[in-house]
């Protein structure tokens, strides 16, 4: 008995010593990420997984989203001025911002205008030595946000002032500059690598001004960062940040429960309840900035008749979809904008679920024996975790009002391509996740420019389109919001889509993680996070 007690005491002593030693050495936060980053030069890529591992820990932007919101705050730019005609943006840069100093690069100067100009010029100027520094380099987000045609020139006014001259007024410009592709990289480092004939390293051993600096990356296994002691906002509370790449969702969950990681993204919705019940864990949740929809082809009869589209919308039982497909991790959508977005029009009433009325409306519209193809995406997306299942439920709902629906699907690339066709047969399940927290980013999907492209409803409504175009030229958010609210009314009246759902994102973590803030754009960020005992 005495021996037993002694042994227990000894064991306890050893384990406490081990914990103390570990605790005292460094605060390490382990994040079980869902995949490998494609690289570390953010602007080359478009995947959120890459942004999590590159732009957020390593770099800063001129302006940034306030953590947990889509509001923009000053970052590497202390302040900015926009000319009255909306064509000139002048940024005053923050002095004294340091770049990371590592065993592969020691900066000789602080951040300045040259870094800003370099970071954008390499994306827009084909003659820039870093425009094609890796084979097949393409700057897809920069292109997608229409930057090549929008930015006429970028000038260095002096070392700490940069001016962007635009070809047209663009209200979302500041929000665009908070996006990941607009991360600021070190020109000095780029020049040094160019001189050494080793430009490829720019994408593999990154240097930025961000809260963490790069230590090592082993593909598909682990990324290591350490806190940047000279970070301009002050050193982060955690000392080391580790991304333990764990692609399988069930395994991530086991690792979190076993304490092998502190935070995991993308849990299986069915497991959320059991994780909430676990005293060692906490589960945060937030409405995702996304929308899942069914886009009719408004150019094909009888779906060119808004009454028919409305009738079909009224036949869809969204609650059943939320229960079966989202398993509770979603909310019904009535607008094309998610509710967390400014200018969301909450006064709009959703079409009620009413199969009898829907049937009557179809009869009134003179439509009988209607059949429709429902396209189901082959992939899982936050806005639609199981499109096949969703399509089956919609099929059954349509059958209840006498509409025969057939489900079709293609490989993802094919699906995206074929669904653009003007003569497409059927309604397409698809969705959108916000890029920059600007309503235009969502509503532009329904603009006349997008017909035959991103506008899967092939819907060109002059009233709606004019509101969108006008809003883009206005500087005041209030004025813009009023126009977007009107646009949502037009949308509801015309019903080019059946808006299905906005997802709710869950983020399970260990109970001792504090200060984590969920990001509406779906990015995972660890500055400001701490670990308690």
């Amino acid at each position: 008995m005495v021996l037993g007690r002694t042994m227990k005491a000894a064991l306890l002593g050893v384990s406490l010593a081990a914990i103390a030693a570990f605790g005292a050495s460094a605060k390490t936060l382990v994040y079980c990420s869902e995949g490998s980053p494609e690289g570390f030069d953010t602007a080359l890529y478009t995947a959120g997984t890459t942004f999590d591992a590159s732009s957020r820990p390593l770099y800063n932007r001129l302006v940034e989203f306030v953590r947990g919101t889509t509001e923009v705050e000053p970052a590497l730019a202390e302040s900015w001025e926009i000319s009255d005609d909306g064509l000139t943006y002048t940024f005053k840069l923050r002095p004294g911002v340091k770049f990371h100093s590592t065993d592969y690069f020691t900066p000789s100067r602080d951040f300045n205008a040259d870094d800003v100009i370099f970071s954008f010029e390499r994306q827009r100027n084909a003659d820039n030595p870093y425009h094609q520094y890796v084979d097949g380099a393409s700057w897809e987000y920069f292109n997608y946000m229409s930057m090549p045609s929008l930015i006429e020139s970028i000038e260095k006014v002096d070392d700490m002032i940069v001016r962007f001259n635009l070809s047209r007024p663009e209200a979302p410009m500041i929000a665009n500059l908070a996006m990941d592709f607009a991360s600021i990289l070190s020109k000095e480092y780029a020049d040094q690598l160019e001189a050494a004939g080793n430009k490829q390293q720019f994408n593999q051993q990154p240097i930025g001004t961000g809260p963490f600096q790069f230590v090592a990356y082993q593909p598909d296994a682990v990324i290591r960062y350490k806190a940047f002691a000279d970070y301009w906002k002050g050193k982060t509370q955690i000392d080391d940040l580790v991304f333990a790449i764990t692609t399988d969702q069930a395994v991530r969950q086991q690792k979190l429960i076993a304490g092998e990681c502190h935070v995991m993204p993308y849990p299986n919705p069915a497991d959320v309840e059991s994780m909430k019940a676990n005293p060692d864990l906490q589960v945060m949740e937030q409405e995702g900035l996304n929308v899942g929809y069914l886009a009719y082809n408004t150019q094909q009869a009888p779906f060119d008749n808004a009454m028919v589209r409305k009738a079909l919308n009224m036949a869809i039982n969204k609650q059943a979809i939320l229960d079966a497909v989202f398993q509770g991790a979603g909310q019904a959508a009535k607008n094309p904008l998610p509710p967390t977005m400014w200018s969301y029009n909450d006064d709009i009433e959703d079409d009620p679920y009413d199969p009898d009325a829907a049937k009557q409306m179809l009869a009134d519209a003179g439509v009988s024996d209607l059949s429709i193809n429902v396209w189901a995406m082959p992939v899982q997306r936050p806005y639609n975790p199981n499109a096949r299942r969703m399509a089956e439920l919609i099929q059954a709902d349509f059958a209840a009002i006498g509409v025969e629906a057939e489900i079709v699907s293609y490989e993802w690339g094919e699906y995206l391509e074929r669904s653009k066709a003007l003569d497409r047969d059927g309604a397409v399940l698809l969705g959108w996740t916000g890029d920059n927290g600007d309503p235009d980013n969502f509503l532009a999907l329904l603009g006349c420019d997008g017909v035959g492209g991103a506008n899967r409803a092939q819907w060109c409504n002059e009233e709606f389109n004019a509101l969108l175009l006008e809003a883009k030229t206005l500087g005041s958010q209030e004025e813009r919001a009023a126009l977007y609210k009107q646009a949502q009314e037009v949308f509801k009246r015309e019903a080019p889509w059946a808006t299905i759902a906005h997802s709710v994102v869950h983020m399970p973590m260990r109970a001792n993680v504090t200060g984590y803030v969920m990001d509406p754009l779906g990015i995972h960020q660890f500055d400001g996070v701490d670990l308690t005992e």
Partner: protein
Amino acid sequence: MLRFLFSRVIVLIPTFIGVSIIAFAFIRLLPGDPILLIAGERGLTEERYAELQAAYGFDRPIVVQYLDYLAGLLTGDFGESIVTKRAVLEEFFSRFPATLELSFCAIVFAALLGIPAGMLAAVKRGSIIDQSIMGTALVGFSMPIFWWGLLLIILFSGVLGWTPVSGRISFLYFFPPVTGFMLIDSALSGQEGAFRSAVSHLILPTIVLGTIPLAVIARQTRSAMLEVLGEDYVRTARAKGLPPWRVIGLHALRNALIPVVTTIGLQVGVLMAGAILTESIFSWPGIGKWMVDSVFRRDYTVVQGGLVLIATLIMLVNLGVDLLYGLINPRIRRN
């Protein structure tokens, strides 16, 4: 022996060309387009699409693309990944040691357990031991890897807490890779506990990946042993009064091993297939997982390059097995 070697190597050339064609065609026959996948829901304008097609060289005639790729293969240039923009060869060799280490441990595990189990089953033929071993082998052979892996993780890592859930080593240990083999690197690192951590991370994936080969080897050993045990020379050996362990362990086993060695060689292909799933479950940073991800992304250069590299390795292993076979059985190299 040289002629034997030469005849085997000559066969490899048409096989290699065949593999290169299949690898090239396979990924292109799948529906889907890497450029469209990269663009995703955001989509691309037609002009931008055409620009990217030209940038990747996909706008050239397919034969030209193939010849270009073949010329690259022959000069050791496997191209760059469409997704990560890194050299395929570099990506392959940064992951290959992880797969090799796991496969090696799995095959050693399978052989060390499978051969004695098969021998025991053969010697005790018809007994309850034989039936249990063969029954277990059948279950092992039929086990879906994904399910089996998760089951072990939940039991040993989740409930019992004996082994880590996934990865190659605890994040507490950090050292630059020297050989790429975690067991060796962790031992070389001199960090206390690193080697133990590496071993503990290897246990579950080794068992999962080794299960199917273990079952196959056990069954093959059993049937080969049964055949050999009925041979005249074994009866003679017994009649001479040799102790049973000498008869079984020396006379019978040596001859029974010939088909077993072939089986082990053939398991390399099976291991590669199994590695794809095992690596996915255990977040093992090897080439199996890399290939699966690349197929989903339609990363043409990675899939075609990776397939050729894997196929070449399997061909070389089989060549090695053929040579080994010749060593064990002189009749084969004479023929």
